[in-house]
């Protein structure tokens, strides 16, 4: 292939992308600035644009006002369970749909795809009724168990399993006497672990940030997730402007740390799972 001339990047490309990056990052920076300032500084005109020295005082108030540490722990439990559970269950179902033959496979897979298009939020009232029939109101399993089913995850894992694992490889394992479970666990799953990891990551982030469902089923402050704790802090808005902001920032820090380590894989995962028309 002959060397192609690649057009150079114009200045306005950087200007546009730089502006987009600035707008994306600024609100987080602002969250940090306000959560380090006292109310008087936050209300100054023009607004202060550098962090103040009030961070630890505000953070301490956050932990006094609501059981915030508990809320962070609850969020972690829920998000970890959902992330890991989705990664495993979707790989398993994706494996069945991609590599196993069984009666009704195509119809059942079509059903999975169809469930993706119906937003379940609109049936939130009966969902709550079922949760209360199970006596799961105000418990974490009310968040975890429904969150384990992900039609998108199955769709995604099926795609990966279908393209990365050859039928010959699985057949060879079969001839050696491996059971279906062994084929999945020893051969198929290790090969698609990167894809399952990204899926779990997206499930983790979504569960960490979820609001409506926890808001409906959680009642007592000890069961709050971090997002619901932010709402509780907002009720103290008049007391201290920075309080809800400080809580928001504290609830975002774990996501930022995670993003530093696996952000590149998330970007690649979203682009890779991107809709292929």
């Amino acid at each position, binding site marked *: 292939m002959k060397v192609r001339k690649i057009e150079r990047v114009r200045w306005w490309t950087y200007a546009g992308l730089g502006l987009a*990056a600035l707008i994306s990052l600024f609100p987080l920076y602002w969250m940090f600035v306000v959560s380090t300032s006292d109310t008087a500084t936050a209300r100054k005109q023009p607004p202060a644009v550098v962090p103040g020295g009030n961070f630890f005082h505000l953070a301490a108030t956050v932990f006094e006002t609501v059981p915030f540490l508990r809320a962070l722990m609850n969020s972690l439990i829920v998000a970890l369970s959902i992330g890991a559970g989705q990664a495993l269950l979707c790989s398993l179902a994706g494996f069945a749909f991609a590599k196993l033959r069984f009666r009704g496979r195509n119809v059942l897979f079509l059903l999975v795809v169809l469930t993706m298009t119906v937003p379940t939020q609109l049936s939130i009232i009966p969902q709550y009724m079922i949760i209360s029939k199970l006596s799961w109101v105000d418990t974490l399993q009310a968040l975890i168990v429904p969150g384990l089913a992900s*039609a998108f995850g199955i769709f995604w894992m099926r795609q990966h399993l279908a393209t990365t694992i050859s039928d010959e490889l699985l057949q060879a394992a079969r001839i050696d006497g491996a059971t279906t479970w062994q084929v999945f666990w020893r051969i198929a799953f290790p090969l698609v672990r990167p894809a399952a990891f990204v899926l779990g990551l997206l499930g983790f982030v979504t569960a960490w940030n979820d609001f409506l469902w926890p808001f409906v089923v959680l009642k007592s402050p000890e069961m709050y997730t971090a997002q619901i704790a932010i709402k509780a802090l907002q009720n103290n808005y008049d007391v201290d402007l920075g309080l809800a902001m400080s809580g928001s920032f504290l*609830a975002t820090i774990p996501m930022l740390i995670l993003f530093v380590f696996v952000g590149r894989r998330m970007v690649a995962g979203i682009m890779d799972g991107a*809709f292929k028309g």
Partner: protein
Amino acid sequence: MTVTSIPAPTKAAPGTKEPIRERLAPYAYIAPFFLIFGVFGLVPLLFTFYVSLFDWNPIGEHVFIGLDNFRRLLDDPRFYNAVRNTFSIWLLSTVPELLIALGLAHLLNHLRLRWAVFFRMSMLIPYITSVAATTIVFLQLFDRDYGLLNWLLGRVGIGPIDFVQSTWGSHILIAAMVAWRWTGYNTLLYLASLQAVPREIYEAASVDGAGAWAQFRRITIPSLRPVIVFTVVTSTIGGLQIFTEPLLLSQSAPLTCGPVRQCQTLTLFLYEQGFGQFQFGYGAAIGVALFVLVVAFAGLNFFLSTRRRTEK
């Protein structure tokens, strides 16, 4: 037995019978999804239709009233108000969001771009920030008296604009939050699709004298059509479900997003009726209305996208 062209991995060797355990394995692997989705997805969806036919008090009586909830809904100005607000916010967020994402994807799709990883990653930061945290910080930035935005607007002689109390202001504020969150995500989807377009096409267009704008209109847009349809559908479904932003917007009247319901969305209206007023039947009827809207939109989109394809 002759060698088949399609390998059948689970078929047992000829002559041996597959143990029942092995034959049931595939069903066991997909069972958790169908079980969970059935209990927490499908049953509630069907039950929504059922409950909507009742005057259903969570701790009291359930009285069958037929279609009365729907009659009441169609006479309820609060319902039309919520529909209007939902569509207004959806339009104000989706149109700029997708246009900006298209432009940014176009800018990012350059082989020699420096700091490409930084640009891509920074665009995903809003996506990992929770809606609750986003709302808190946007409320501060858009505050009438102390917000940075109004201060900047004041410097050029505009405002101050009350982004919480006014109808348009609150719609713009919520739309800004939604767009901030999803623009980067959609940019990455578009970029992935763009990278699949052979660069030779752009080069050939360049040689033929097509400028940047002509290339964008004639090559970028058409090759992205499927993913554009996809993002329009997902942002429509997402737009119909906006809840957290309006709930956190008004501190005096959270369930109505302000004293005159100036930014109450359909999902917030559903929540208010169901969990604020304890009218499960009426709330379920709002859920049915949402379902009808989603189906109508999906159908419209399907119709438009297939018609466009057959015209070509």
